[in-house]
């Protein structure tokens, strides 16, 4: 039986983590390569890097980081942030990433999904979706709307429609981030995850809102999500990945316990 995945997410700016990350018993470190290696050793099933560099040299810096990460960790990792063209994807994949994620760029130019899937295979293309709750209207019948540009721009796109379209275009996975839940530590947006997961046939990674292992349990049980993205829970040493996985394992969720 397939295991549910626990995926730490690292925000990178100018080749450094945006905040130093403090593991239990460790000092703060700002090097994404070192942190990724640490998560690899601690049993992360996959790692997500999100590049929030604003400068024009961003690509080279990130590619360099990806290359160094790929020399040290032997589990899949994905890179998102600022990927706009198939050539951007190619560089990141050649540097050693397993997957690339597209978010705002895919809304502006949906063909990037199909072009990427055609060039590298569906399994390489992750559709990142930032979602906000809205009124149920004719335009947004699911009651959820896609926002882009880091939550600043409302698109009027219905989240469920967009997820289905992304799958049809060739996305191999969806990373579903609830803007409403993000940063609250009150738990994932369960309704949203259930809605999207039960309506697409590609894996869904739940993102936004995790504060406790119980929250992760809630979103993984009954297949509301195939994987859970975590950040602050482990970044600041509140929990280790082993503690989270042990909790899930004891509650009957299949997770990888040997590494």
């Amino acid at each position, binding site marked *: 039986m*397939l295991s*549910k995945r626990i995926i730490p997410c690292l925000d990178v700016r100018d080749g450094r983590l945006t905040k130093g990350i403090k593991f239990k018993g460790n000092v703060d470190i700002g090097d994404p390569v070192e942190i990724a290696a640490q998560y690899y050793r601690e049993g992360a099933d996959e790692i997500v890097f999100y590049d929030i560099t604003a400068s024009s040299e961003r690509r080279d810096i990130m590619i360099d980081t990806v290359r160094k990460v790929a*020399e040290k960790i032997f589990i899949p990792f994905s890179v998102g942030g600022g990927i706009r063209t198939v050539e951007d994807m190619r560089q990141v994949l050649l540097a*050693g990433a397993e997957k690339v994620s597209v978010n705002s760029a895919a809304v502006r130019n949906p063909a990037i999904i199909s072009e990427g899937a055609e060039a590298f*295979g569906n399994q390489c293309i992750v559709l990142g979706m930032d979602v906000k709750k809205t009124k149920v209207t004719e335009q947004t019948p699911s009651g959820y709307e896609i926002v882009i540009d880091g939550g600043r721009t409302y698109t009027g796109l219905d989240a469920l429609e967009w997820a289905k379209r992304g799958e049809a275009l060739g996305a*191999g996975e969806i990373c579903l981030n609830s803007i409403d839940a993000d940063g609250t530590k009150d738990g994932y947006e369960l309704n949203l995850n259930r809605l999207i997961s039960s309506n697409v*046939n590609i*894996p869904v990674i739940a993102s936004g809102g995790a504060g406790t292992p119980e929250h992760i349990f809630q979103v993984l049980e009954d297949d509301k999500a195939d994987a859970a993205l975590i950040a602050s829970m482990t970044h600041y040493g509140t929990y280790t990945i082993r503690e989270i996985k042990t909790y899930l394992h004891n509650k009957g969720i299949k997770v990888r316990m040997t590494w």
Partner: protein
Amino acid sequence: MIAIIDYNAGNLTSVKRAMDYLGKKSVITGDYSEISRAERVIFPGVGAAGRAMSDLKKRKLDMALKEAFKNKKPILGICLGTQIIMETSEENDTQCLGIISGRVARFVYDQAKPEDAKLKVPHMGWNSVNFKRPHPLFEGLDKDSEFYFVHSYYPVPDNPSNILGETDYITRFASVLAAGNLAAMQFHPEKSGTPGLTILENFSRWDGEDNVK
């Protein structure tokens, strides 16, 4: 020297990086004579069967692989590589190498088991392998080890003796195959953490004999 066969199929660099990490000399190559000279051969791949076979043939690498097999060179198949060694694939209706007899099928839901419909295709993520017997390549693995899979098709060997390990997803499928000096796995050892690296390390020392000493 380990030859990692280059046939335009991607995923080659991650196998190379894993070998570099282990300190094993390897080269990514599509050159017939370089493959002939190599001590052992890794046949990796991500992509579609039809395209892969036509790229292999274009470069005469289908012959190089068959020769390596006949000459008892240790061969490691990974993911698409594991499918291409079969006779035929449902993917793009492809005639494959036929090193192991059998076919490659796509995951199909059993109508009698509606609960399976929520299992997604591709089979992507970590899953376990039930090994049916010991093999030199899989020595030293914890029995609870899991491996990273990404695929929509799986091999169906005619001869059960070629099945070294099985995995459950939608159906029970042959996830690890063995035929003398060839061992092949549907998962990605280069992306499967420590257990995966153990397999690659074992391969780099394997003499091609299918018996545990």
